[in-house]
């Protein structure tokens, strides 16, 4: 069989892989941010029992390889709980947990960076804790956290490439498929690498623009 050359079907495969990578990245980033903020709030408000447990879990997630976490969820959990998990579910679940652990750290340090005096002032003006959180803490913490969040997002995008190891047909897996068929490793991996590179750069640029926008209203505009 001579199907070693690249053909018209390959760009479609590439686009599908790109879609899967971006999809898993977006899903895990959004879910991870929500859960990460929840973890951070539990720890900032020192919720008993929950806060220390979450701390242990997130330390565990931060200090172990994502690849092994993926293996644990995809190969280990189905055997333990007698359930079926698709590769994509395992991938999103694992990456969400991982992202949440890092988001929690960023959120806690961003909240810490806010001047305590402001909170006391808000309390003495009779703001509820909820409105303090929404109107005073959240907008400022977001600005402080932006650079770290952009860094994390770029990093998590790279991490999505690992889901190819549990059989998700993402960009890296597409690279492996094309590499095995065509035996043109330099062309295949250069294209895949450049795709990730451009994605990362676009992500960082978008984050940078968002950051300047968020900062704009904080600049001193004069009275």
């Amino acid at each position: 069989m001579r199907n070693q050359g690249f053909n018209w079907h390959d760009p479609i495969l590439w686009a599908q892989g790109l879609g899967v990578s971006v999809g898993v990245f977006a899903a895990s980033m959004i879910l991870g941010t929500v859960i990460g903020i929840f973890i951070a709030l539990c720890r900032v408000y020192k919720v008993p029992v929950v806060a220390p447990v979450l701390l242990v879990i997130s330390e565990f997630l931060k200090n172990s390889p994502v690849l092994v976490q993926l293996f644990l969820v995809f190969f280990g959990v189905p055997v333990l709980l007698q359930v079926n998990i698709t590769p994509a579910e395992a991938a999103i679940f694992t990456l969400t947990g991982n992202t949440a652990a890092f988001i929690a750290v960023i959120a806690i340090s961003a909240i810490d960076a806010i001047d305590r005096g402001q909170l006391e002032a808000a309390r003495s003006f009779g703001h509820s804790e909820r409105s303090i959180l929404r109107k005073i803490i959240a907008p400022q913490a977001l600005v402080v956290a932006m650079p770290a969040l952009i860094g994390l997002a770029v990093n998590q995008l790279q991490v999505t490439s690992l889901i190819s190891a549990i059989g998700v047909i993402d960009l890296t897996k597409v690279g492996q498929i094309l590499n095995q068929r065509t035996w043109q490793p330099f062309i295949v991996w250069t294209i895949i690498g450049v795709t990730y590179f451009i994605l990362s750069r676009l992500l960082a640029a978008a984050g940078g623009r968002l950051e300047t926008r968020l900062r704009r209203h904080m600049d001193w505009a004069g009275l």
Partner: protein
Amino acid sequence: MFWDGFLVTASVSALSIVGSFLIGVIVAFGAVSRRPFLRKAARGYIGLFRNIPFIVQVFFFYFGLPEIGVYIDAFTTGTMALSIAVGAYAADVLRSGIENVDTGVIEAAEVSGLSRFKIYRRIILPIALRVSLRPLGSVFINLVLTTSILSTITLNELTGNAKIVASDTFRPFEVYFFLLLFYCVLTYLLSLLINLWHRRLNRFMRGAE
């Protein structure tokens, strides 16, 4: 089985830590160089290897090198790819450390007639390391975790061996859970070591604190 895997992980990690540190130092000095060409090349290097997933880089080398007639085993390829990739992260950390070194100190060293190499080696690097050792430590911890990716290019380190054990025993959960804990312990020990080194480097700084 487990011990063999640990030895491979440990030796890949140790060699790549040394390798990436050396690359990091060279690239970092390039990135702060006065020559625009060197500066651009070094920053391009940092940007390139930080924005492409490690697994893609490792496949590039693992499948690409034999194409151009270089036949080396997975261990060497892995160590090399890790050193190159993590070197970019190390370089970025060291660059900001170097940029924080007081220019007065460098000028003083130049006036004293020290050679360029001596200034780099004896003056700038030790001072920069004091600040950047902690972030450098987390880069190296990440390196140890990244070695697990080398299992995808058939290197039987901890993760590669765990895969074999998991399929032999049909107990994937226990195997991978234990493996995760083991990586945690490993990185914790490494962070203790880095803390010790950090304290040693900053032993003259007590008064300033």
